[in-house]
């Protein structure tokens, strides 16, 4: 078996028959997708993959970013709309990514994406620029399973000139007017961070629907790797299903990973670590210094828990304490997802009145007469 066949075989093991699968008490499927960060990345991210990169200023999948760097994944292509805190910058700086499709990449706290800038200058990185709505629409088209989607915007600027891979123009078949179209983005795999997930892979994210994670994740060809602050029971999630952005069937791996988005924010858990982003950014700035950051904070830590321990050693528990959010914003709406059981209609006669009865009887007589 060649390398490719082996890889495919390990990815797509023969499907278990339903009767062999573990069941819950109610008898439904209960496949536990929890695993370590290391296993999740080793098992589900292959060299050459296209990866949807989750988050924005919040929920940046930093623990997964570090693990991809640790495992020296290569030739990745990333798709996302906007991403901050330098997560994608260090992923490029570490040599994992050769192609990016993006609207906005920053470490805003040093006002530049330094590693990306250098990689582009040296010709190591193909960068395809598009607007935020263009990117979101591309992910939406992937989510919808259609090949492209029309958008306003991008037209008239330099983006379509330099990014023909994603942006073209068509004649509107209905009006004949020229319209911008963007290619659908369907990643092989998505990496996202969320507040809560259950062992089955239902993912709960709230308070920050700004990120395009639900479209990026659902549009993937293979599925989603999620790190979550907390693992909760499926029945807890099923009690509030409005908040699920990725349902279990799309999820490949669930990693319990507190602080998994640090130094970006996780709504309700911790705020943005501006000082650490600046610290990291000052390393990103210099080609000769960035490897030392990676040695200490990524290669030098076996997992994300060690990274957080290192943080405490170096910058103190008070550094983390400073990130505690102002809480006390529980929803005040009293919501009950009550339902109605149609069994109550059993034995209830049809509602009727004389007019309706007379009309229907006359109609029946007429039909009978024919």
């Amino acid at each position: 078996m060649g390398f490719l066949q082996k890889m495919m075989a390990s990815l797509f093991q023969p499907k278990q028959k339903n009767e062999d699968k573990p069941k819950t008490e109610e008898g439904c499927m209960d496949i536990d997708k929890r695993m370590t960060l290391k296993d999740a990345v080793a098992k589900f991210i292959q060299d050459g993959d296209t990866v949807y990169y989750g988050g924005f200023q919040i929920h940046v999948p930093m623990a997964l970013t570090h693990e991809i760097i640790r495992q020296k994944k290569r030739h990745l292509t990333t798709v996302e709309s906007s991403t901050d805190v330098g997560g994608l910058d260090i992923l490029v700086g570490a040599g994992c990514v050769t192609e990016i499709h993006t609207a906005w990449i920053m470490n805003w706290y040093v006002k530049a994406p330094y590693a990306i800038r250098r990689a582009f200058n040296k010709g190591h990185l193909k960068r395809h620029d598009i607007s935020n709505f263009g990117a979101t629409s591309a992910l939406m088209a992937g989510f919808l399973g259609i090949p492209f989607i029309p958008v306003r915007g991008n037209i008239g600027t330099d983006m379509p000139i330099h990014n023909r891979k994603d942006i073209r123009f068509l004649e509107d078949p209905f009006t004949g007017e020229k319209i911008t179209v963007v290619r659908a983005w369907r990643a092989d795999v998505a990496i996202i961070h969320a507040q809560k997930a259950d062992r089955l892979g239902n993912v709960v994210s709230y308070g920050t629907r700004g990120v395009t994670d639900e479209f990026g994740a659902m549009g993937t060809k293979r599925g989603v790797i999620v790190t979550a602050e907390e693992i909760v029971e499926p029945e807890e999630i099923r009690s509030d299903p409005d908040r699920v952005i990725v349902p279990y069937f799309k999820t490949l791996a669930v990693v319990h990973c507190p602080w998994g988005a640090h130094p970006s924010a996780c709504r309700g858990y911790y705020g943005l670590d501006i000082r650490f982003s600046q610290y990291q950014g000052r390393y990103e700035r210099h080609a000769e210094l960035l490897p030392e950051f990676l040695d200490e904070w990524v290669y030098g830590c076996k997992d994300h828990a060690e990274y957080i321990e290192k943080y405490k050693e170096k910058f103190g528990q008070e550094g983390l304490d400073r990130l505690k959010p102002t809480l006390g914003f529980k929803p005040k709406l009293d919501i009950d997802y009550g339902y109605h059981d149609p069994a109550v209609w059993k034995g209830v006669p049809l509602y009727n009145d004389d007019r309706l009865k007379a009309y229907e009887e006359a109609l029946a007589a007429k039909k009978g007469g024919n």
Partner: protein
Amino acid sequence: MTAFKLTELMSIRCAKEIMDGEVVFVGVGLPLVVAGYAMKTHAKNMIMCTEGGAIRATSPPGLAITVDDPCLFTNADATYGMLATMAALQRGEIDVAFIGGAQIDKFGNINSTGVGDWAKKESFTYFAGSGGANDMATSGKRVLGILPQDKKKFVEKVDYITTPGFLGGPGQREKLGMIGNGPSCVVSTMGVYRFDEDTKEMYLAEYFPGQTVEKIKENCAWDLKVSPNVIETPSPTEEELRIIREIDPTGFYLG
């Protein structure tokens, strides 16, 4: 008179361009400070939309560092998502597209992608990219810009058109089917600019206290036209300065 920074005056003056009750799509950077200020002062009925997906009728509880900052979603009117908030642009429901940038030219085209020659990769210095600025300026009813000024930023032709102003001149936006009307006002660290109705060229309408028309022309790479009615912008009041400093207490944006 209290001493003030040019960034403070720029923000306070820019806020006055927002009318009470308008729906404003707020970009990253100084627009976040200015919008927060407007909502706390004369534009209490302003509606704020961001790319991060927040729609809010009240001033955020803290300074949002980016358009996706959790404080924008705390007690928001809707956490609607990037797709849904930005769709309001395409439907033509946004009154003001409010953006920053790195370079601007005389037709109000803005560059936030990078400087140098993109095709010669080694010479191009990448910034962040468009973000939502392109979408906002394409479809917002009018565009309000806020950019620090010097000769490298106010240029004859931007190195990369990220965000359309009037492109090459009158009629070009219409030809491409853009639904927004284009730039209406730009506020810099030196003065206030508007656009000629016929030529679509940016001209100086106000100069800041301490600046002169000559000095401003020196800090602009094209032959800048000046309004015959050019005036000096009034200095900010103590109350105005107090409010703007409250919004950015660490000076993250105002310095």
